[in-house]
Each structure stands twice: as C-alpha cells, then as structure tokens.
C-alpha cells in the first residue's frame, strides 16, 4: 500500500519544490528578461488567433442558446447580460486557459523533455546556469502577464460575437445589447475573471515544466510527458476554477 502511494507523493513533493524554486527565482538574480519577452511573444501573441476564434464562437453560440431559452420568459433583451456575465466570470478565463494549456503546456513539456533526454539540461547545469531560473521562471512570469490579457481579448471578442447574433439574428439594437451587457458586470466579476487566468497560468506553466524536466525514456518519454502535461494542466484548470468560483459565490 505504501509503495503504491510513494510515487504520487514524491511527484507532488517535486511539483511543490519546483514551484518554490521558480517563485524564489523571481526575485533572485540573474534575471533573463529577454527570455521573458520571448516567451510572452510565444505564449501570448502565438495564442492570439486561437483565443480570438474560440472567444468569438463561444460568445456567438452563447447568444443563440440563451436567446432561445430567454424567449420562453419574454426576456430576449437580457441576452447581452447573460453573455457578458457568463464570458467574463467563467467561459472567457476557462476556455482561454484551456486553449493556452493545449498549446503551451504541450510545447513546454516537449521542449524541456527533448532538452532533458539530449542532456541539454545537464549541460546547462554544468555550464553555470540554473535550468529553473533560465527555463521555468521566465515562462511563468510571461504566462502570468499574458494569460489575463488574452482573457480580456477573448471576453471582448466573445461579447462582440454575441452582439453580432443579437443584432443580425435576434434583431436587437446595439444600444439594447451593449447597455445590458455593460450594466450586468460588476468590479468583482472583472476581478475574479482576471484572477482566474493568473492562477491558471501557474498550473499550465508549472505542469508543463514539471513533466518536461522529469522526462525519461527518450523520444517516447517526450511524447508521454507532452500528453500528461496537457491532460493534467486541463484537469487542474477545472479543479481550480471550481474552488475559485466557490470562493467567489460565497463573497
């Protein structure tokens, strides 16, 4: 029984140790600022097309579905409100993070995994560089900055997608839709809507880095690490959004 538990307990311990060292390195020199900007470009700008696409269609679909449901109560005019609240509170942060997890956690795990199996991580340590400082911390900082920004873009594009449906299909006036959407949102919604992607950024990057840096077994191991990174980071996003939402609704 103890042997069965040993492996997951050790994995959790290593994950926390990695988290601790990555956070500690934020304030400890050397700082690899060029790597932070490079990662912001890769994670942020690189994810922009897919985030816009997902944001737009989730907003549009939400508007169509909600309009149908609201029509039963004669409240189609509230479509903007429903779309805005759903996107800003939940769908925007979660869908954006899932897209970024699919792109970034897999990318990080495969890149670091390949470096591990080709002894580049060992070479880095042998040549005077802390791999966590050089590889993990810049990715963590970059993701924590760009994921909330991507969420803002996804939220806006989603609400805009909902507006197109409201205007062209539901025949609502722009004023009616945007007023309803704007009035529905509170500062708490926006705060939690941006806190979530910030927290998810930790889960995505640290999971990708953990599986990458613990890769064993050659190229097959890299493939395994990549899959595990995407699955675990996606599950962690749902797990974390549940707890954050629980805190949010109890306020």
């Amino acid at each position, binding site marked *: 029984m103890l042997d069965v538990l040993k492996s997951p307990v050790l994995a959790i311990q290593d994950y926390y140790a990695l988290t601790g060292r990555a956070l500690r390195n934020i304030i400890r020199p050397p700082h690899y600022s060029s790597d932070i900007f490079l990662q912001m470009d890769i994670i942020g700008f690189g994810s922009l097309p897919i985030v816009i696409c997902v944001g737009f269609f989730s907003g549009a679909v939400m508007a169509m579905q909600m309009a149908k449901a609201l029509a039963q109560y004669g409240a189609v005019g509230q479509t903007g409100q429903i779309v805005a609240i759903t996107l800003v509170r939940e769908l925007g942060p979660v869908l954006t993070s899932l897209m970024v997890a699919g792109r970034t956690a897999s990318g990080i795990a495969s890149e670091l995994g*390949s*470096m591990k199996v*080709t*002894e*580049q991580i*060992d*070479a*880095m*340590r*042998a*040549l*005077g*560089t*802390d791999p966590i400082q050089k590889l993990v911390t810049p990715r963590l900082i970059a993701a924590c900055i760009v994921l909330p920004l991507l969420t803002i873009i996804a939220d806006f594009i989603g609400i805009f997608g909902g507006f197109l449906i409201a205007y062209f299909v539901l025949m609502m006036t722009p004023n009616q839709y945007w007023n309803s959407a704007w009035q529905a949102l509170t500062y708490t919604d926006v705060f939690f809507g941006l806190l979530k992607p910030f927290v998810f950024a930790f889960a995505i990057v640290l999971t990708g880095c953990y599986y990458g840096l613990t890769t064993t077994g050659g190229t097959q191991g890299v493939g395994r690490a990549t899959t595990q990174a995407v699955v675990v980071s996606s599950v962690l996003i749902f797990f974390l959004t549940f707890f954050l939402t629980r805190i949010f609704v109890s306020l």
Partner: protein
Amino acid sequence: MPHDDSQSVLRFEHVTVCFGDAKALDDVSFDVARGETRIIFGAAGSGKTVLLKTALGLTKPDSGRVIVFGQDVTGMEEKDLFHIRSRIGVLFQEGGLFDSMTVEENVGYPLENLLEFQLPPDQVRERAKEALRFVELEETLDKFPAELSGGMRRRVGIARAIVTEPPLILYDSPTAGLDPITAYTIIALIAKGRDLKHTTTVMATHRYQDGHFMATCRFSPGTGLAEPIAAAEGDGLGTVFMVLNQGRIAFEGNLAELNASTDAYVSKFVRHEE
C-alpha cells in the same frame, strides 16, 4: 572539511549511487592526480556516465564522498557547485549542444554564464572563435547544431569544454557512434588539448583504441599532428586505466598492466595481437 592534497584533482571515496534498487555505482574509490589522463572503460550501463555526472555534482551519491579540487562536493548546494564546475570542462555523450543556439552561442555560453567569467559579448565572440579554430571549425560560427554532422557536433562540444581553459576536462564517450576516421580526429583533438593546455583528462569510453592512443601518442606542435611516443618514454604519458563492471571497479592500472590482465571481463576491452 577541505583537503589540502594539491596533487589530487578528483577523488571518489566509497561512492555508491542507486537508481531505485539498482546500483549504478557500487563502492567506487579512486584518485585522479593533477596532469593525469584517466581512461574509464566499461560496457553500456556499466556506470561510466553516472560516474562523470557524479564528479560534476549533477548526480548525488547515496553514500561516500566526492572531492573535487580539494572540496567535498557531496552535499554541496547547486549555487556553490557552479564555482567548482567553472573549473571543469565537459563533453557529454551526445554533445549536449543547445539546439536553439548557434555554434558561436553554444561555445560562448560558459563564458557568458559562469560567474567566474561573464565576459562582454566582443570578448566572448573572440574566445569562441579561438576555441573553434582549435577544433578546426571556425567556419561554423553561425550554424545551428542540427546543420552539423555527428563528428562536427562533438568537435563543437570539445570547443565548448575547453573555451574556459579548465584544469580538468571530462569526456563522456567522445567517439561513440562515429566512424573510425572521425573517431580518430576526435581523439587526436582530445590529445591535442591535453598536451597543449596541460589539462587533467578523464575520458569514459568503450573503445580500446581511444585509450591506447591517449597513452601512446602525444601532440607535436611542430608537425601539428599526434605522434607516437618513443618506447623509452613509455610510461603511458601518465595514463591510468580503469574498467567498470556493473558499477564496480574491475581493474585499475597502467597500459602494460591492462594488456597483461587475465580477467575475463577486463580482457574484453583489450585488443590482443594475433
């Protein structure tokens, strides 16, 4: 406790390294003196790479002590190990070159990142060019490792190992997977580095020819070639051979003793005359 034995560069004292239940190194003890060339023979999985990584502090021993340049590195923290590692050059088995960097960036990496150096970019470029000139690959400065052949990647790896002019260089299977001509070029370069820069050299290999060459040939600055030493000089140029078998030292001695060994495992690494 610091050791003041100035002749000892690398010492293993009853070192055991385990991965799970398997012992990669089992009670290994040896001492590498300043200026010595130590050849470590062993089959795949015998513990050669683990031994070199333990010497660098990349792998922690489960028991025993590792002493490098008189300092016990066994329980040393990573940041303190960087100071020790700045005095050790290393060529990894597959070269260990960074895929995302050019050859120049790879070779200049230790000069930019090791605390003892951190040179400005113009000096890094100059030193990197100099090291690449040493391995006769100056024209590859702007290429990426993926654009090079296996032999060229090893030579770039050697350039990166020697660029800081460390007093101790570790070579992990430098000729593995190479054709005989390229393997000869690599070993000749290692001998050149040893003889011109007077470095202590530890080389893990499974090829008898590599060890034999290091013990019997010396680089001649006059001809620019490695030449066999005279028989009268035949102390093997301070070369010590060690054979690892399943993590344990099966043999330690000079070339003559290696050739004379009757041990069944050890003699597999010796090319006997027909």
